[in-house]
């Protein structure tokens, strides 16, 4: 999706402003919101890719004007309704009005230690990798209206395969309920001038983690 979330290379957002001695959470509700999102992810009701897609689907003006954890809250409300986990009327009321669905898992206190680790997304490959380290590849000029992890700034540009990272769940299909569809994942490095033109620094490179369907030989 060519959305507002795909920010690499955009102008006009100003300086980076680090906050000295930043607390982990700026308000108690932020921690609660994070934990709520993690506990719901642990139920197996949706994939990490569906969760990312739900943030990207927020209207651009909401995305830009909401704090990080406010986006997480809006995303979880929208996901809950879209997946039939809760009704908009129930969220409005602040109480369940109907019984819940049966979900694959429920995060208990004893499961928390393990849930701190991110899930494992590596999967057995179904075919040999198409590219080798050192190959010249072009990021395809694709513009799916649904979730993708190929950033706009790389599309159409030529880079070098630096590493083969293994075979992983493919976000583009996982995000729309079309399964894990595992794909080879590569680190592809682009010269800054290839991406940003002659005004860019000669000595900089940017790499992306690119799934095989994002790439073609160059």
């Amino acid at each position, binding site marked *: 999706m060519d959305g507002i979330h*795909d*920010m*690499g*290379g955009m*102008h006009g*957002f100003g300086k*980076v*402003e*680090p*906050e000295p001695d*930043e607390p*982990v959470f700026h*308000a*108690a*509700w932020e*921690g*609660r*919101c994070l*934990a709520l999102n993690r*506990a*719901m992810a642990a139920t197996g009701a949706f994939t990490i890719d569906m969760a990312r897609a739900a943030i990207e689907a927020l209207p651009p003006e909401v995305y830009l*004007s909401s704090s*990080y*954890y406010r986006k997480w809250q809006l995303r979880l*409300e*929208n996901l*809950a309704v879209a997946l039939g*986990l809760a009704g*908009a009327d129930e969220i*409005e009321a*602040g*109480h369940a009005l109907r*019984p*819940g669905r049966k979900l694959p898992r*429920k*995060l*208990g206190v004893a*499961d*928390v230690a393990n849930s*701190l*680790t*991110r899930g494992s*997304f590596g999967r057995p490959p179904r075919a040999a990798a198409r590219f080798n380290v050192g190959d010249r590849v072009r990021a395809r000029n694709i513009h799916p209206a649904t979730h993708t*992890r190929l*950033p706009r*700034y790389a599309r159409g540009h030529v880079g070098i395969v630096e590493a083969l*990272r*293994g075979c992983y*769940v493919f976000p583009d299909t996982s995000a729309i309920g079309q399964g894990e569809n595992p794909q080879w*994942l590569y*680190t592809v490095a682009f010269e800054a001038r290839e*991406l940003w033109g002659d005004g*860019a620094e000669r000595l*900089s*490179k940017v*790499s*992306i*983690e*690119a*799934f095989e369907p994002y790439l073609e030989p160059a």
Partner: protein
Amino acid sequence: MAHDHHDDDHHGSELSEMQLRVRALETVLVEKGYIDPAALDVLIEAYETKIGPHNGARAVAKAWTDPDFKRALLEDGTKAVLSLGLLSRVGDHLIAVENTPSRHNMIVCTLCSCYPWEVLGLPPVWYKSAPYRSRAVNDPRGVLADFGVKLPSETEIRVWDSTAETRFMVLPMRPAGTESWSEERLATLVTRDCMVGTGLPLAPQKAP
């Protein structure tokens, strides 16, 4: 959407509005039987205390003093960090990238906020902000300047955009003048920002 009564019209009350909104959603999800509120308490405490840059700092300090560990860390970050025994599990495919006199590494996630939680904790606000996500890839020296970092013009800057489930941390260069330092003491020089690549380790005389 439920509760979405033109929040942008009253910025000043976002905190209380958000408290109510999060509480409402939690109540619904608990009553539906999807979540256990006691697990939320434990999760929050863990995010505040168990994970954090102290874990990454230990890995960096050990890599500075133990060449075998450094090799292992650069070869397989997941396995190497696990071997420190700080964490019961480490997510798949943590990749450590090494700064050298000729190359400086910087980590970003232009699409969202991917960050190596286990070794660095939750990401700071600036890492998730539009200025950092937009500029890290096309103006890395400008971003470094925002952090007060100036590198020689002949240093290559390499930006790693975390667009998949691989996660990156920077192995910074060991500061000069620390030759006799123990691993524990070295760890006090390793800041979060130097493991993201937006900072350098503290100078020895700045040790806390």
